[in-house]
């Protein structure tokens, strides 16, 4: 008992361990302006290109995270740090040092440690003198690197016949914005209590081998200025709650499921009781999958996507293609490996059934009671976003873009988020009148009968790549397989629906060979659109953009039925189930 109390004393202190600091925006922008002016006019190397654009960004983050398992805190951390990033462009808008991938530099970094000054951690309580000095060193490092990259880019083009004459960077009007706001205080005691309660749900499920419930709250302040005269100050924050559980079926098949809830303000998460109930449902679903019979054949036929699966399927395989991407020039035939390029040259073409349309709505704050993660007031370039119609009546109209133009998208629609163009809030609408779940199931059965299938498949949950890559894989890498390819997904809740209407939980099918064409087979949609927040994998790799690996986004879509879909049996040599019984089993 003594030990327990001592720990609590220590943990309580954690919640208050991050010092609140008073940072003067005036000092920060003053230092940025002075050093920027000096650098634009004086920073030169004879014989090399001159600076034409500089941008400074100071981000101050105060992340808090808490992880619990079976009623106990596993880790808790409160941090505060600031990151200064400087971007210098040399040449001109038409041709500059960007859109060039220096293989050596990107893979191995510079052997000169001064290069790291252009993007490094600085104090979270900077004053004018301090920041000015940091900016001096960072601008110097960024300029030297950009000037060298420009020359390397020219050299790489020496032996090439260049067809793409798209400018490297788009001009933009100068503007000033202030989106400061009060950052809500996180009630750490409340969330400790809540997460302990939620994680305790699993004590009653001895067939579940491992479970965690965690929360993170990340407030961020940004100070931005560029040499075109744009500057802004913004505050943003987001909260994410995640419950993840895994087990192994008796035949060794790894099983897992999750529940996530996101909001901006922690107080706008769903009510505690609802999250607790969702955790319970997750435990019940996973237990049911554990007891379910594994499917014994591959499946090719109609699939009904319910629950989170219509959103996940679209988020993983369709939406990334709606981001404008530009393949960087590189040396030695190296490719930056851009993925999701299917729509880069397809504007005007048919990409979905004619009854479906898609729009990006970055200004939409809420959908019903759900705060949307893809909402933002200003993008990384300092541009104010507006709605973008992406697909109208099945035909592709536009792509989401930043100030880096592509052959087909020559205008930014203010979607630079966390380093590069990225999804915001996506709304899928149908001009067909949607139908109820029962009607969707009836249609599924009808198609099964036409195709002489004994049963159809309902996918109710699909594993989210962020949950997989972070929580699930971290909690026990041996329990769950890698999501083995970019064209496949792992359903976490599967149901067989027989032609007589009988439903039976099953397991052991993987979605395979999914691509943008798969969505043309949507034949019917549900009557209710649901908002789904998620952390989406950056479409333009963070490795290339220098930004984040995962970015908050949202999708609002109705459930839908795909007429024809391929799923294959999950057949591997699974590791055996644990030899000794789960210790919680003896308590029951």
């Amino acid at each position, binding site marked *: 008992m003594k*030990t327990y109390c001592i720990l609590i004393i220590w943990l309580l202190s954690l919640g208050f361990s991050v010092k609140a600091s008073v940072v003067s925006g005036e000092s920060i922008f003053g230092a940025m302006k002075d050093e920027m002016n000096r650098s634009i006019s004086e920073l030169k190397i004879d014989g090399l290109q001159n600076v034409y654009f500089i941008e400074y960004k100071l981000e101050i983050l105060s992340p808090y995270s808490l992880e619990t398992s079976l*009623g106990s*805190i596993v*880790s808790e951390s409160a941090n505060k740090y600031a990151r200064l990033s400087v971007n210098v462009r040399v040449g001109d808008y038409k041709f500059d040092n960007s859109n060039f991938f220096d293989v050596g530099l990107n893979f191995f970094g510079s052997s000169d440690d001064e290069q790291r000054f252009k993007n490094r*951690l600085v104090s979270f309580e900077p004053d004018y003198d301090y920041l000015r000095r940091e900016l001096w060193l960072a601008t110097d490092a960024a300029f030297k690197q950009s000037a060298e990259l420009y020359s390397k880019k020219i050299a790489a083009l020496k032996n090439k016949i260049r067809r793409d004459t798209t400018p490297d960077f788009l001009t933009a009007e100068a503007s000033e914005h202030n989106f400061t706001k009060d950052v809500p205080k996180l009630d750490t005691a409340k969330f400790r209590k809540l997460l302990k309660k939620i994680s305790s749900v699993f004590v009653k499920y001895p067939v579940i081998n491992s479970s965690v419930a965690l929360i993170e709250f990340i407030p961020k302040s940004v100070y931005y200025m560029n040499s075109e005269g744009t500057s802004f100050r913004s505050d943003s924050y987001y909260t994410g709650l995640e419950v993840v559980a895994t087990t192994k079926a008796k035949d060794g098949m790894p099983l897992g499921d999750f529940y996530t809830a996101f909001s901006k303000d922690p107080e706008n998460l769903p009510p505690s009781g609802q999250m607790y109930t969702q955790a319970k449902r997750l435990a019940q679903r996973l237990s049911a999958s554990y007891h379910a019979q594994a499917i014994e054949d591959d499946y090719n036929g109609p699939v009904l996507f319910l629950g989170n699966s219509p959103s996940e399927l679209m988020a993983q395989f369709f939406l990334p293609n709606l981001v404008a991407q530009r393949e960087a020039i590189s040396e030695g035939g190296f490719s930056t490996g851009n993925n999701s390029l299917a729509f880069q040259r397809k504007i005007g073409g048919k990409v979905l059934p004619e009854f479906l349309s898609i729009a990006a709505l970055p200004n939409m704050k809420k959908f019903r009671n759900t705060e949307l993660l893809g909402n933002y007031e200003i993008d990384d370039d300092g541009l104010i976003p507006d709605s973008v119609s992406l697909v109208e009546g099945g035909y592709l109209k536009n792509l989401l873009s930043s100030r880096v133009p592509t052959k087909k998208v020559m205008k930014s629609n203010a979607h630079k988020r966390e380093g590069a163009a990225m999804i915001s809030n996506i709304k899928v609408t149908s001009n067909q009148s949607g139908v109820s779940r029962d009607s969707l199931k009836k249609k599924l059965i009808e198609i099964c009968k036409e195709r002489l299938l004994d049963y159809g498949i309902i996918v109710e949950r699909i594993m989210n790549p962020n949950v997989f890559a972070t929580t699930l894989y971290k909690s026990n890498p041996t329990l769950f397989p890698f999501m083995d390819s970019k064209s496949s997904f792992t359903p976490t809740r599967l149901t067989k629906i027989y032609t007589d209407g009988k439903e039976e939980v099953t397991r052991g099918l993987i979605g395979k060979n999914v691509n943008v064409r798969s969505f043309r087979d949507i034949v019917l949609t549900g009557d209710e659109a649901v908002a789904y927040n998620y952390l989406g994998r950056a479409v333009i790799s963070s490795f290339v953009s220098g930004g984040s690996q995962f970015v908050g986004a949202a999708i609002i879509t109705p459930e839908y039925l795909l007429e024809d879909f391929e799923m294959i049996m999950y057949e591997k040599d699974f590791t055996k189930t644990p030899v000794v019984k789960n210790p919680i089993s003896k308590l029951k």
Partner: protein
Amino acid sequence: MNKKMIILCLLVLSLFSLDSKSDELLDILSDELKRNFDGLASEPLPPYYIGYGLTEVQSVNIISTGGKTLRSVDALNRVLDIDLRGGSYDFDNTHIIRGQSFNFGSARGGVNLPLENIKDAITQKIWLATDNKYKGAIQRYEKALSNKAVKIKEDDLSADLSREKTVVDISEEILRPSIDKSKWEEKLNQLSVKFSAHPWIFSAQVSLSLEYKTKYFVGSDGTKLRWTQAAARLMVNAKTKAEDGMSLPLYNSYFSFHPENLPSIDYISKDIDRLIVTLSKLRQSPIAQTYSGPAILSGEAAGVFFHEIFGHRVEGHREKDPNSSQMFKKMVDKEILPDFISVVFDPNKKELQGNELSGYYPYDDEGIKSQKVVSVVSGKFKSFLMSRSPIENFPVSNGHGRRQQGRKAVSRQSNLIVETNKTVTIAELRDKLIEECKNQNKEYGLLFDVVQGGFTFTSRTIPNAFNVMPLVVYKVFTDGRPDELVRGVDLIGTPLATFKNIMASGDDLGVFNGICGAESGGVPVSACSPSLLISHIEIQKKRKSQAKLPLLPPPQNKIKINDDKIKN
């Protein structure tokens, strides 16, 4: 004077005395170990030994730069390490597999455990981790068996796990400090701001790292232990750059088991003043050219030198590895060093001549009582540092099985102490250096004053060389010219040749407290030695940054902000 008084206000140590006969967490570990051990007993290859080592780390890290806090975090975590053995003491799943260029997954694998003593939460994680470990053990045991069958007879037929007495000791009181972080932030800011007046110092940080580890150990043989390890480290790091691009780092480091015993801010502040002066001189100093000849290593430098050149070669487990150079395997009772030198490793020592030693620990990470090891007596080699992995003629551990949490324990160094019975004053040592230079027709000898650390290679596939990285080196001229500060060199060599060249030792003592990194992670160690005169050392040029100095002069930070305007 009032160092202690000041510090007492800063830190309140909460001393909680736990029951010395029982410990809730140890009981949970013990029960779950027994449950798993018994549960696996009926398997075709049951474990014959399981050890659970749990490290609870309470830490505070504060970094300050330019008079501002860069980072200030505290953390608490618990990491469980499992040592599970299938087979027998003589041959088990950890047996070395020969002919493989890489052993997958052999070294890492700690598991984060819940921070509260809630049995369900803790035992479920332990259970799953034990099962994973067991499955890995079965697989590796089969591989080891077939490897033994297809390869030639091993040179060293020692067992895989030593048989040791069981120990039960949970008497040590647990310290759980509460620290006034904001006071420390202020102090560090006071120190780091000193660098701001020197724009040619391109990066400078002052950091405080406090770590309070409570270690728990239970073994299926009945061992049950709980002990603590504390460390407070204050580091001052600063880096400048010479005109020719060379990066020039310098540091000061201070170690104590408890932060209240660290030097006062005034004391450190004066050290920083000296460090700034040295950095300034280093920027102007010439680059040393490659050189072979006599040199003096200061006590600290000599400690690091011995740690690299000697210490890593007496870590016992390496003698079993056919890829290791096994330099001293057949050298027991043979002369390897001059007869005036003895070397001991003493993890029981908390301090030496008033210097606290970071290589202290009461038990090693395999649950063995730490023991003093006399490794060299009057130049003759006597003993290796032993973990529970026996080698020929060394069948038991001497309490040097160490690891960072999350790694597999192997034999590692503790407090290395070089003792000599032939000392001269430092002035006499200098005279001897000059005399030796003259004998060798050298214009100058070298004095290695401050070193950053070093590294060495012990395998057979690459040359068995060492590298000590000096930061402050002087030329000592034979013609009486003043000493000249030089830069840009590393001290290199091979061990056996260098051992013979130690000529004399000073009457001083240098103590290097640091973290040694090797296959079992970073472990705190110390290296203590008097200054040494070496007749032949070799230096090579350091890697050099190719980046130019900043193109623009530093901004003139004289203008204060007001409400109206910001001027430069």
